[in-house]
């Protein structure tokens, strides 16, 4: 609590001087890297790093039962685990509202953009493939959302379909890549003082009064938005955040 107040005073003071903790521009990312196929057992995996933030996405494919109203479509499910190792505030136990929000915001963008053609996951009557993407946060130094999108997309892009025989998956025999139609990336903004900045570090998030995540799936196409935090954002602020998110898209796509 007290350390947060100290961090906030420090960050707000820097904002007044128009600078950031690491001297970045307000709309610059820290260094990004994405490592693909980090694990062999799961059908797809990736670790995204933005600055010191590390998020692992693991993708498992399972035989699943389709939803009653969509009997010929596969299913996608996202979950996020904030490991206690990632941040002193994270505790073991059932997912809290932050991890539920993160998983749902990533789900929203990837589902809305129709990244996965769910019709192609139909196997036979009553059987479809389920795509389970688990986001495992191991080092939280700010901007988990953008890292989670990068890790999820990279995991989707590297995922291989196992052979399907007699209603079962033969996981040792992986054949075709999982069909992915398009790439989704996100830009997450934080309002700190009266400034809006991209890719906040942890101390900047602590000082933030509001957050907006915008996910894009094309040159002029948005596929998810989430506003949280107490601050209000004006129409003009939204417009400029959308411009930034669309402009940064190319830069982010390089890492997937």
């Amino acid at each position, binding site marked *: 609590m007290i350390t947060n107040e100290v961090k906030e005073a420090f960050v707000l003071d820097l904002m007044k001087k128009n600078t950031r903790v690491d001297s970045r521009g307000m709309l610059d990312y820290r260094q990004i890297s994405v490592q693909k196929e980090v694990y062999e057992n799961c059908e797809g995996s990736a670790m995204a790093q933005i600055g010191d933030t590390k998020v692992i996405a693991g993708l498992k494919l399972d035989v699943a039962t389709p*939803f009653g109203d969509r009997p010929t479509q596969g299913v996608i499910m996202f979950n996020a685990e904030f490991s206690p190792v990632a941040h002193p505030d994270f505790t073991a136990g059932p997912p809290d509202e932050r991890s539920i929000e993160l998983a749902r915001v990533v789900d929203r963008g990837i589902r*809305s953009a129709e990244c996965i053609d*769910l019709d192609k996951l139909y196997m036979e009557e009553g059987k479809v493939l389920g795509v389970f993407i688990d986001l495992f946060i191991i080092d939280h130094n700010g901007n988990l959302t953008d890292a989670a999108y990068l890790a999820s997309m990279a995991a989707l892009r590297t995922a291989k379909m196992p052979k399907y025989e007699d209603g079962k998956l033969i996981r040792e025999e992986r054949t075709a890549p999982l069909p992915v139609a398009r790439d989704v990336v996100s830009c997450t903004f934080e309002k700190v003082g009266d400034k809006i900045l991209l890719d906040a570090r942890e101390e900047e998030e602590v000082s933030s009064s509001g957050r907006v995540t915008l996910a894009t799936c*094309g040159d002029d*196409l948005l596929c998810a938005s989430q506003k*949280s935090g107490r601050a*209000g954002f004006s*129409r003009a602020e939204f417009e400029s955040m959308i411009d930034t998110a669309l402009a940064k898209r190319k830069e982010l796509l390089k890492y997937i």
Partner: protein
Amino acid sequence: MAEEETAAMAPGKAPKKLIENGIRNDGRKPEDLRNLKITVGVLKKAAGSALIEWGKNRIMAGVYGPREVFPKHNMNPNKAIINCRYAMVPFSSLEEHGRFGPNRRAIEIGKVGKHVFENAILTEQFPKTMIDINIDVLQSDGGTRVAGIVAAALALVDAGIPMRDIPCGVSVGKVDGTLVADLDKTEDNLGQSDMPVIFSPRTWDILLLQMDGMLTKKEVMDGIDLARIATQRVHEMQVAALEAKYGAAAAGDDDSQDESAA
């Protein structure tokens, strides 16, 4: 956003026309709202309450507090903490039987709802306390999160909790390629995009904006503008509901209209 955690959340390809000759399935024009009625002070025990009947939606909001914080470690020595619980009762939807209590979707809505009221309530006036906002969906018909927040805002006023503004909003979206306001359940499930927006009507700051489906930048901006026009009408209903219980003087002369013109 689709009201259920089912495959219906997948972006749908509408099997039938939802808009024909500019007229929606239920006879509305794109910018029209469904029937809307709000009643303030419907519960005896709660400090403040409101019932909203919006289309087929029936949503109850009730408020307790400021009161002692439980569990204690959540206490903030500088301001009141806000708890916001959104849940749908098991019999609220046309589809299968649900369960009591919040699911993952409801927990997320409670979280963004909480942020809306953290903006509006003068929390610094009530340090070391908590204010509990409960939003219970008794019958759902699309747009329940905005309807719940519109009702909860009035429940807070009814509880006498000082606020900067009365948050208000509406859901907009893209249905059959057309931007429409106040999507009903069918439009929500089968439309291409859904964007619930909550404003602070005094400043028109955006306190909540979620979006799914695919929209261009222009569509998002036009959606915000359409939401603002529709919200103006919903806000008038909010003020009328307060006047109905407390009289015109207590509801205050709403000078926000003048400011918004500027």
